[in-house]
């Protein structure tokens, strides 16, 4: 009984983290049609920057949440710069976009190795969140429950942004029909920069929020990118609801699949992904049929 309960709660927790990771990717791909293969590296970069400030590695120690904000803003700025200087030159040229995003991810990975070294960086659980919430014999780490809350807050916030604000309306217009959006007077290129920065910032935030759970180490980017891709595929590109449902679903598949089918642990994510793609290429909630 404890076993099932622990796994269920952890599925939602892990799903929450995956949502923060993949929401950015889904937005960027939905609006700009760019497969942002840098996404894993932005996650890792956010985690490293956040860890530096949260752990006082360069002398200045900040509160964990403040460090998270710093990390998010730094990487969002980096994302905005990348979009303006590089990606803007390549509208529609998907191959060049793949080349540049992979090139940047190589550079970020090596840069992180240069700056922070090869050893993993420990990030302590923020104060007040260490410890457990006990429900009978089961113990749930408080911080992981906090991640669920954070994910829900962000999901609500993003929904509000997309559904109730003018910016959100412009983004949705851009996702549905970028050319018509331009005709109507929406500054689509400025929108692109904003959305890319938002997506990058989200990835970075996910990185630092996940760091007390995952630690930060070289190779984190390559471990997380396939997960983001799986969520986006299952949930569908360009759809916020899809990202959310997809994340939770992947959380469940990941936890229960690995626990119950250990022989298939390597395939537990990619087999469902393959099945969904073969049967429904646009994903469960996707609006874009590729």
């Amino acid at each position, binding site marked *: 009984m404890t076993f099932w309960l622990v796994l269920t709660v952890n599925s939602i927790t892990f799903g929450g983290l995956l949502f923060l990771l993949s929401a950015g990717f889904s937005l960027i791909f939905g609006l700009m049609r760019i497969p942002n293969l840098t996404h894993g590296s932005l996650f890792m970069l956010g985690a490293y920057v956040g860890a530096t400030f949260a752990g006082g590695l360069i002398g200045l120690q900040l509160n964990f949440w403040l460090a998270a904000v710093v990390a998010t803003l730094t990487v969002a700025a980096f994302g905005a710069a990348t979009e303006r200087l590089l990606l803007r030159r390549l509208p529609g040229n998907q191959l060049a976009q793949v*080349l540049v995003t992979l090139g940047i991810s190589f550079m970020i990975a090596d840069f992180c190795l240069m700056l922070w070294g090869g050893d993993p960086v420990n990030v302590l659980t923020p104060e007040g969140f260490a410890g457990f919430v006990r429900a009978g014999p089961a113990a749930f780490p408080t911080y992981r429950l906090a991640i669920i809350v954070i994910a829900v807050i962000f999901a609500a916030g993003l929904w509000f942004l997309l559904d109730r604000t003018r910016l959100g309306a412009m983004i949705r217009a851009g996702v549905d029909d970028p050319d018509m959006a331009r005709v109507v007077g929406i500054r689509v290129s400025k929108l692109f920069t904003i959305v890319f920065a938002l997506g990058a910032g989200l990835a970075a935030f996910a990185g630092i929020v996940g760091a007390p759970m995952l630690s930060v180490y070289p190779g984190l980017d390559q471990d997380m990118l396939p997960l983001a891709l799986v969520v986006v595929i299952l949930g569908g590109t360009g759809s916020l609801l899809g990202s959310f449902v997809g994340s939770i679903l992947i959380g469940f598949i990941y936890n229960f699949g690995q626990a119950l089918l250990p022989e298939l642990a390597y395939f537990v994510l990619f087999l469902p992904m393959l099945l969904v793609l073969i049967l429904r290429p646009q994903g469960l909630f996707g609006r874009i049929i*590729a």
Partner: protein
Amino acid sequence: MNARFAALTVALAALATLPFWMIGVYYLNVSSQILFYAIFALGLNVLVGYAGLVSLGHAGLFGIVAYALGFLLSDGWGHPAAIAMAMAIGLAGTAVFAALSLRATGIGFIMITLAIGEILWGLAYRWISFTGGDNGISLHSRPAPFGYSMASPYTFYYTTLIMFLLTVVAMAIFVRSPFGAALRGTRDQPRRMTALGYHVWAIRFWACMFSGLLTCVAGILFVYYTQFISPQTVALTSSAEVLLMVISGGPATLLGPIVGAGLVVLVKTVVSGFIERWNFLLGAIFVAIVILMPEGLVPGTLRLWRLFWRKQRGARTEAQP
């Protein structure tokens, strides 16, 4: 036309006599590597450049034929039989790969191929009785076609060169053929092609098979070169690497993937000996290519070359009274 013919002859002569002027066996081996990676890149280019289908799982195909060969050889098969059987298995694998992947195009195709690649990677780790897991399979000998043992780096180089030239010829024929034209048609205007009566799926399927054939050849040469196969070869990073070779060199060109293969292999093997942060350098090179020549190194260089000559001619005509 004359200039191109001359350039071709010079290149051919250089390749044919390479072992004699290349300084040292080590660089000869690097050249062999560039050649079989070029075959791999040319094979991927059939899909990426000419069919408009980006595959992130081609290392999986590479792996199927490589593991098949490794397994058969360690099971006691002789080289010719093992190679033939491995090619057959590789082509069968390609057919399944194509049938699954062609359910979608565009980003869907990319994701399906990624998923297949990851699944094959997982199989390479877990199907230990067949693949040896991460201990891999070691090959203890290289074949000796017509009595020349490929254990010698010279024979290996010439065998690879012959396969490379055959590949280039095949690609040239393919590009100029009606099939090649039809494939480019499905890339640019799939709906119009269907309206014209072409069976788009079948054209794409046979393009996949052609791509798979070249990938199998490259896979066999690779396995004989390293004499070892392990799951790293089937990983996502390997698929990404060959894709980068194609894109950086110039998709939809004949020379592009060859140049791309040369670039990546040289940075990984030779430049990494002099520059510690070669991974960063490689990423920076890719970004630079995108800024200066987003269509790829080969088309970009040609464009800049023509721009340069036009400027020269312009200056000359201006100088005239």
